């Protein structure tokens, strides 16, 4: 396939994004046609997804689209199964968040189109980021994602908290990407290249120590996106202040993107250097899991609790990367680590977006997201209550839900590499998480609520909840195709050895 066709998903989503923004400007506030803009965004998401499926079968090996740099062929974007997998995650996130945002956006803001246009652009930035194989491209895509995220976080511009959240996010992000840039320039200085594959090839002239220092500085930037401890502090504040659909987006999209780029840097650029990354990755994973879970324990606001819980979830994903880094280079074991991360991420995406959909429904109805207000939900909406139960089971990792399969793979990968302590920390953290997830469920099922009026669920919302519930169960009950998908997508590994 030629380069242009490999980029059709990106091109499609860009066209839709700009079409939405232009129409939004062209139609004035009273124009009823504006109502189609969310659906246009939805159509754009679906079209992009179709393009990804269209490309998928053609990408069976490590495939580059070429862009020129200084007159020579230097690949900037890789269209391989791994990037397509992450693009799929990004687009699905945009679609599901877009669908659940409708009522919320209508209620809280006067700008309908702009919101959806920015969402698509954020999706585009993730798609670029997960394909990047060049430090400069990584930086540009990362900043693109950051800037769209800052704007979306501060989208409720009459709400002081939303503004504060955006400002904190921005200032924090500015420092983090500054530190990351130092890392990039150090890596460039040490190896003389900004291309990941070339960096990998320059090991004989480079000191491992400098590369390690560079990677640690870069970790500040990637860790900021994934919200890894100790670069996580922006996330609870930003999550609480941001419009809830954006919180949902932040909890999946940038995390997936950061993880993808971290995986790519680790897998493509670094394995040649004889450095043992396992201790650092394990340490960060342990801290991320533990801090996330311990702080989530005493949150009483749903959004904030989910912020911490998603920090912890990112920690579990990092366990998979630590397991990968501990494997001998030739091992393509069936519990490999990277495929485990992908499977976990797929499960996590559906589950977490499902939880947020419910949080949005309840916030639309009740105006708050305090956990105390979830009391007696079972009487108000048995369907949502059972859905919430399934989602939380999945987040804890209890069968028969997708989260269980994800954790089985991730911890299985760790055990397989002999990282027993890490796996044990993971299991122990899962136990802690039972306490706060089931604390919410206790309210939902056992407490008596002050209000017993039934919860109204719109069509779009209903679709989101149903899709996410079905997928959460399906990945567990009929896991084979998804496991295969993750394994195929991780073949970037095989191509490198």
């Amino acid at each position, binding site marked *: 396939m030629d380069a242009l066709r490999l980029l059709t998903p990106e091109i499609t989503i860009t066209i839709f994004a700009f079409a939405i923004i232009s129409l939004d400007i062209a139609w004035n506030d009273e124009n009823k046609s504006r109502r189609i803009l969310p659906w246009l965004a939805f159509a754009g998401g679906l079209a992009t997804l179709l393009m990804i499926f269209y490309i998928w079968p053609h990408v069976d090996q490590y495939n580059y689209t070429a862009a020129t740099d200084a007159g020579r062929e230097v690949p900037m974007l890789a269209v391989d199964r791994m990037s397509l997998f992450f693009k799929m995650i990004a687009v699905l996130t945009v679609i599901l968040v877009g669908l659940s945002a409708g009522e919320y956006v209508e209620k809280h803001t006067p700008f309908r189109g702009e919101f959806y246009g920015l969402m698509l652009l954020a999706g585009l930035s993730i798609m670029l980021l997960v394909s990047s194989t060049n430090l400069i491209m990584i930086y540009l895509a990362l900043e693109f994602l950051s800037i769209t995220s800052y704007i979306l976080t501060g989208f409720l511009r009459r709400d002081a908290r939303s503004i504060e959240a955006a400002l904190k996010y921005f200032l924090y992000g500015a420092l983090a990407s500054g530190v990351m840039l130092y890392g990039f320039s150090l890596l460039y200085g040490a190896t003389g290249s900004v291309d990941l594959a070339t960096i990998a090839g320059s090991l004989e002239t480079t000191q491992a*120590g400098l590369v390690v220092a560079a990677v640690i500085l870069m970790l500040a930037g990637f860790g900021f996106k994934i919200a890894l401890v100790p670069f996580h502090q922006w996330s609870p504040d930003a999550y609480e202040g941001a419009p809830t659909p954006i919180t949902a987006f932040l909890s999946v999209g940038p995390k997936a993107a950061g993880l993808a780029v971290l995986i790519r840097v680790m897998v493509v650029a670094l394995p040649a250097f004889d450095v043992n990354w396992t201790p650092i990755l394990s340490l960060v994973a342990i801290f991320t899991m533990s801090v996330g879970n311990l702080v989530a324990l005493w949150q009483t606001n749903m959004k904030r609790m989910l912020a911490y819980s998603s920090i912890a979830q990112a920690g579990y994903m990092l366990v998979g990367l630590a397991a990968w880094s501990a494997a001998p280079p030739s091992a393509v074991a069936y519990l490999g680590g990277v495929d485990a991360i992908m499977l976990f991420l797929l499960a996590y995406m559906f589950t977490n977006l499902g939880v947020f959909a419910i949080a949005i429904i309840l916030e639309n109805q009740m105006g708050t997201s305090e956990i105390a207000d979830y009391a007696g939900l079972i009487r108000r909406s048995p369907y949502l209550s059972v859905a919430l139960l399934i989602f939380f089971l999945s987040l804890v990792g209890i069968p028969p839900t997708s989260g269980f399969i994800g954790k089985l793979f991730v911890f299985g990968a760790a055990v397989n590499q002999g990282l027993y302590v890490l796996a044990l920390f993971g299991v122990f953290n899962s136990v802690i998480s039972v306490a706060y997830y089931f604390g919410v469920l206790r309210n939902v099922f056992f407490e008596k609520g002050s209000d017993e009026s039934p919860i109204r669920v719109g069509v779009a919302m209903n679709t989101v909840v149903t899709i996410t519930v079905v997928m959460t169960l399906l990945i567990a009950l009929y896991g084979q195709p998804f496991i295969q998908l993750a394994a195929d997508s991780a073949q970037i590994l095989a191509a490198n050895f």
Partner: protein
Amino acid sequence: MVLEAVLSGFVLALFAPWIYKVGRGAAGWILALLPIGIFIYFATFVPPVAEGETFVFAQTWVPSIDISLSFNVDGLSLLFAMIISGVGALVIIYAGGYLAHDRDINRFYVYILMFMASMLGVVLSDNVITIFIFWELTSITSFMLIGYYHEKPESRTAALQALLVTGAGGLALMAGLVMMALVGGSWEISELLNRGDVITGSSLYVPILILVLAGAFTKSAQFPFHFWLPNAMAAPTPVSTYLHSATMVKAGIYLMARFSPALGGTQTWTVVVTSFGAVTMLLAAHMAWQKKDLKQILAYSTVSALGILTMLLGVGTHAALEAALVFLVVHSMYKGGLFMVAGAVDHEAGTRDIALLSGLRKAMPITGAAAVLAGLSMSGIPPFFGFVGKELIYESTTEFDMSAILLTVFAFLTNGLTITAALLVAHKPFFGSKLSAPKHPHEAPLTMWLGPVTLGTLGLLFGLLAGWVGEFLIAPAVSAVQHHQTEVHLALWHGFSMILLLSLVTIAFGVLVYWKHEVLGRWFAPSNVISKWGPEQWYFWSLDGMLGFGRWQTRLLQSGYLRNYLLIIIFSTVGLGLYTLSKYNVFSQNTIFRPIDVTSYEFMFMALIVASAFVVTQVRSRLAAVAALGVVGYGVAIIFVLDGAPDLAMTQFSIETLSVILLVLVLYRLPRFIQFSRSRPKKITEITAALAGGGFMALLVLLVTALPAQSRLAPYFAENSYKLAHGHNVVNVILVDFRGFDTMGEITVLGIAAVGVFGLLKLRLDKTRQTDTPPDVLTTQHQSADVFPVMEREQS
């Protein structure tokens, strides 16, 4: 077929609310048809299994990781499956009466059917992942069932406690099972059982054993995890009957029995399992007779019975396994019956306090008769099946080769106190003079006495037909646990022996304690400190500890102040970076203290940069700070010029100019300048952070510049600028030719930014506040003590 038998419970659960809508009061009877059907289905397996056959049913599920829905019907799983379905049918019928007037009874049916199906899954699964899946499902359904009386806070607390304890154990179990599967090389349990020597010989044997036992001990309420079970008595009585005596708490026992061919037979196994079991059985028996609440007595005596079973599995001899399986059947029958009796008494008389209950036999003759039948079996009186069980227990403890005497003394005390508990539950409420109960008691309805009467009668029948039961039910189960075919001969009468004498003395001891239980209760009251300092307190302490730790580290890490966040980024990257650099010994090379070629005017500009950076931190006016920042930027640009990068310098100049102008424009809308860090410690931290960050970066620059430059760009441009672009000025060629698009992009961006700035300046969002008062948000934020206010955050 087995798969359908297991899954049918889940399917029926989905329809249960609808069946309740149609069937109303008869719903219990209708729903009980399913467990009855399952029971009959499994009963057809009894003859072939007794012949030594096992049946395996497999269905692939996730082939790539070898998870299959495989089920194995052998003696052990068959015995459990029949107990689960049989008691299940009786409990569902019983619940139809017990909860008849409850508004949530439809939900109850859903949960209990799902629980039954999960429990069947646990005992029938032949795959380590599948067994874990069903295992966790029992924990979740039990969470729902214990919390069923959700108005009561103690129900809710107990539900969460049971879930945390058994859920934690379950996750440990999963870790153990996965490790066992990796060591044993198979995910099928029946395969793993063939590889016992590989597993016990592996270096991971002890961790595997600990993890698997953690799962079994939490589920089966062994000391020190036993406390959740008495608290779970907050559940409705049908739940206590089913989950907390007959089935769920036996899942741990099942697990130990199932895996004993793979994990058992070692000294570690014998010592650990036997001693946990022995301690649990005696402690719990001692707690049981001092309780005043019928259900509490039964709960502690259940813990004690589970201890006996664990102890017997630990001993692991043929006699002990025989005893364990007989006692398992005995216990399910009498304890199930007695729980139902306790529920009926509570339902009809309005209390479960034994001090208030007496002489109910006239009012509740059938319930009373059922209680007596079960009580006799529990006390181990011939010809009840309980007698057979007790004889076998003594037989195995007296033959224990490590310390027979100690174990027999433990068993003696436990059995004696069990008899006391049996008398307290089955004798005290029904005999003696009539006391005034809160409600006027009358006989329970058919639904509520059917269960206890059936189970009580079975206890008698099994005793009379002991030989037959031994051959068809116990022998196949013992064979399964021992992993080879074996025979069991049960009989009521073993002739006069030490053991019979021991049984008689036990009965005398039990009756004596019962007779004097009020006096003895006062004597032994101090021994209850264990409940004050016991494991339940550890549970609460660890919960509190976790919460406290969480809160402490939130204060530390999540203060809400951006200043702290940024400090953490700087310190952690510098710390991690220095650590790795020192680990890789980069300092040892002669890189840091080397002569660097610096001209005098470079020094001058550097001094200027440092000085203005210092000024930025010191001045009290924003305008001055911005100006000083501008000086820093221009200084850097001049250094670029000096180092031969005029294009970079040009960009730097224009960006610097633009940002200074922008900042000045923004400044004039901002409120009064405030000094952020006033206190000395804050200043010291900030100075440290600045020095650490700057120093670290300087160090890195030194390290990198020590390397030979590897850029291929400079030679490339030098070589090609004339060849390809016909230009002698390399910089010009780069700007307008090689990077022509870049330059165009830069110009465009600058232009758009300028338009944006212009738009912002012209923007009058709100006419009233644009001159004097700055916008709301910023004001609020600057008026607070630090840069940003702490976001409103909940306190637990």
